[in-house]
């Protein structure tokens, strides 16, 4: 068994699959992170991905261009995010419930549209849809192990990496990042500071729509080459769990989505040694829940230790300032969550 696992972890093919299955999760997780930072939960990410995947396939089939397909897919995904915003922010609806509603709307709606166009409910294979190109990197592809892992990945895998940088920049460097965090932490204070929270939340919803749109297009125009009903397979929900593991940062999102990617890729291998596929399919979701619990446990423990040290005055001099700030943040976070 150990030998088998060691074999998997050293195989370049395994890591190739890890990158491939992490990319879509990473993109949506970033979307979940940015909306959550502004204090709105986007549970409609699953629906956004479904519409993006379907629209991408249809438009690329009719125009013959994967790029137009992807653009249309992103627009469809953003539309779903905007509908969520309209109902949750303008019509005072419960955002989570709207997410549930939009996911129902999308699961049914995508199949309805697919059937009306092709006469098939399951798969879009009768549409001549296009594929977003895979990228072979000259020179790098000849490096023995690394070349096999990173060369030949889909363009969107690279886009996911770029998205991490962009979202990290938006959250930490730009003015808009400060506005997002202010809105998420204390909406009244944000208003007092002259920030329009509704505008900020709509901005994050659009950003998450774009990210989920790219991820959705990848699923039907790269990861596989067709739209199949329910193609998002809960990735939009996983993103909302991974977002907690990520701790609200873009860098954290990499690790959070890797948990899913590593298990998802491992599942293919475990199946080969005769473990029941049903149990293996359940694994990524189970591991996501576990990862989520472990992260909260660690965070809670660290907070309580820090608080105790602060109370007993046992903090070493050098760390007094950052620790006090951290403790304060922790307490505020706890208050917000409770």
């Amino acid at each position, binding site marked *: 068994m150990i030998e088998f696992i060691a074999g998997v972890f050293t195989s370049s093919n395994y890591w190739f699959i890890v990158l491939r299955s992490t990319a879509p999760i990473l993109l949506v997780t970033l979307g979940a992170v940015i909306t959550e930072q502004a204090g709105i939960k986007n549970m409609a990410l699953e629906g956004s991905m479904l519409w993006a995947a379907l629209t991408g396939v249809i438009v690329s089939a009719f125009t013959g261009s994967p790029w137009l397909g992807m653009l249309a897919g992103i627009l469809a995904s953003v539309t779903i995010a905007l509908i969520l915003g309209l109902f949750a922010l303008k019509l005072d609806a419960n955002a989570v419930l709207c997410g549930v*509603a939009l996911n129902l709307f999308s699961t049914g709606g995508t199949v309805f549209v697919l059937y009306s166009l092709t006469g098939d409910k399951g798969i879009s294979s009768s549409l001549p849809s296009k594929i977003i190109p895979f990228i072979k990197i000259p020179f790098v592809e000849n490096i023995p192990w690394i070349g096999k892992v990173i060369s030949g990945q889909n363009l969107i895998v690279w886009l996911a990496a770029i998205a991490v940088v962009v979202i990290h920049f938006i959250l930490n460097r730009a003015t808009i990042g400060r506005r997002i965090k202010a809105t998420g932490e204390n909406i009244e204070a944000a208003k007092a500071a002259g920030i329009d929270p509704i505008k900020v939340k709509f901005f994050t919803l659009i950003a998450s729509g774009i990210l989920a749109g790219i991820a959705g297009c990848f699923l039907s125009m790269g990861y596989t080459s067709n739209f199949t009903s329910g193609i998002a397979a809960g990735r939009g929900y996983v993103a909302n*769990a991974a977002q907690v593991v990520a701790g609200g940062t873009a860098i954290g999102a990499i690790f959070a989505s890797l948990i899913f990617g590593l298990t998802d890729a491992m599942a293919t291998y475990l199946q080969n040694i005769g473990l029941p596929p049903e149990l293996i399919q359940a694994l990524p979701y*189970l591991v996501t829940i576990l990862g989520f619990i472990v992260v909260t446990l660690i965070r809670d423990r660290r907070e309580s230790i820090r608080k105790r040290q602060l109370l007993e005055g046992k903090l070493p001099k050098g760390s007094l300032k950052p620790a006090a700030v951290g403790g304060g943040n922790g307490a505020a976070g706890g208050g917000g969550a409770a």
Partner: protein
Amino acid sequence: MNNIKAKRPGPLASVRLFFTDRDKLEPAVITLLAAIFAILMGVGLIFIVSKDPVTSTKNFLLGPFLRTYNFYYLLVAMVPITFTGLALCIIYQLKYMSLIVDSSFYTGAIVATAIGVRLALPAGWHPAVAMLAAGLAGGLIGTLPAILKIKWRANELVSSLMFNYVFYFFGSFVILYFLRDRNQTILASMPFQKTFALPKLVENTQLHAGFIIAAVFVVLVSIFLFRTKWGYQIRITGANPKFAAYAGIPVASVAIFAHFVSGFIGGIGGAVEMSGLYRAFIWQMNPSYAWDGVIVAMLARKNPKFVPVSAFFLAYMRVGADFMSRRGDVAFEFITLLQGIIILILASDKIANYFKARRLRRNALAAEAALADGATGISGVAGKGGRA
């Protein structure tokens, strides 16, 4: 307790009250309008995609009543969504969002299948034992997201959706590896024992005794939520958890207990569906009745009394859509699309309170006008304010 009961108006008086009390009438009207809007939108969609829209529309709207078979099928279709709708009423009274009842229902069906296939019990006892076991399993599963939320502040909807995948795959694993009928080409469990089947209510139809069990549960859950200490605690906790905690209500235990009851109902629903409708477990995928439960509970405004009405409405739409899609070119799935739209509308406070807001605004304007008129202003304002 007694004098509260004494003040309760009789049935006729309460109907009259309902129609004169605008705060109660208006939400009902909005709900009705949402339902009508959804049906109109469905008809619109049919006219966009169908080659023979008139026949399709007729089949969709009248299909459930065109044949007796269809009508009985509608009654049968009410059963599972009544159970999940009731289960979600409890969750929504608590102001939680979890959809774990999907796992409870599915696992309940799996547990019932195991008992229906493996155990030899006398008729009558057999489905009863299966329901109890399925209920317990469903109840235990139901508590998971609540525990996660209370202990680790995990969003209950997110964790319940994860669990739904886990329990779905685990359930199909159990069927495949322990209960599968290897003579069948499709995925199916071995056939149930004869003693497992619930009796039919009407011969040569699908209508089974589960319909009565569901009706009994409507009454039981209504009593549970509105006439018992537990139900009171659940509603108070949902309305204002801080107040409930100050009042000495053990908020965490109440939430977990409510989830257990909700999951219990879901589990029983799964078992009833198995023993009432099937001769073996033949679900190729999860029917996800919990998602239908969302709309049933919302149309009923979280009140178990109205669950049969909203379950009837949803079953009517589904049976109509099923009948239409079998005889035409419109996909059955458009019903799920409409469900999403109805939930969106019902979830919006601004839409729900539209009439009330308009009334208040008018009264305020009238009061202002009266003030501007001067003289009798004060008494006029007081009178109008009181009525609003």
